[in-house]
């Protein structure tokens, strides 16, 4: 079975400061890992994904994440927060099923960006 734990339910940062969203996972197999973002009243949008190539993954809007197998972590970072980064972020692990891939979501981290 697989599971995802997002270690912070809320994160508050000032505009221009770094953002760190923490994610730990457990999976029986080599996982594919994703970060999705959900802006208010919008659907989920893919930020980035790890699929067993480079362990440092770059995504959209300046976000990146590092896959660390020894720590079973996939933390999301951004060097400098922007007001438009205020949203909810989901860490997701994907495993295969007999038919179709199955996504397991973390509980989400809501990011507040202060001016």
């Amino acid at each position, binding site marked *: 079975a697989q599971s995802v734990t997002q270690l912070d339910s809320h994160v508050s940062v000032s505009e221009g400061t770094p953002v760190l969203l923490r994610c730990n996972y457990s999976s029986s197999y080599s996982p594919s890992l994703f970060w999705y973002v959900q802006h208010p009243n919008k659907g989920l949008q893919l930020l980035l*994904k790890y699929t067993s190539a480079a362990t440092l993954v770059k995504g959209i809007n300046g976000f990146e994440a590092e896959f660390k197998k020894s720590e079973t972590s996939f933390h999301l970072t951004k060097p400098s927060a922007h007001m438009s980064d205020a949203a909810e972020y989901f860490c997701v692990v994907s*495993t295969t099923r007999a038919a*179709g*891939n199955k996504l397991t979501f973390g509980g*989400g981290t809501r990011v507040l960006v202060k001016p």
Partner: protein
Amino acid sequence: DVKVTQSSRYLVKRTGEKVFLECVQDMDHENMFWYRQDPGLGLRLIYFSYDVKMKEKGDIPEGYSVSREKKERFSLILESASTNQTSMYLCASSPTGTVKETQYFGPGTRLLVL
């Protein structure tokens, strides 16, 4: 761009009503999914479909059914709505369902059951 649309953004229904939520994707994807989203729980899979007329239960199928008569359309049915089904419902699709594949999400339907 992949587009996934959902028939309603907001719905208000009464306990015991039969509720239909519709989802349409325009990219000829094989797989379609229904999730519900609740605060602190992330998204949980209700049902998914890997082909027309084919479906598989997700993690929380109780109280729900689905229908996929055409490849582009996937319907979620609440046979007899209950207050504990008040939630945000999100539809998604993906091309073939491999483990590395991105799922594309619709904007969601916020359902209130009174």
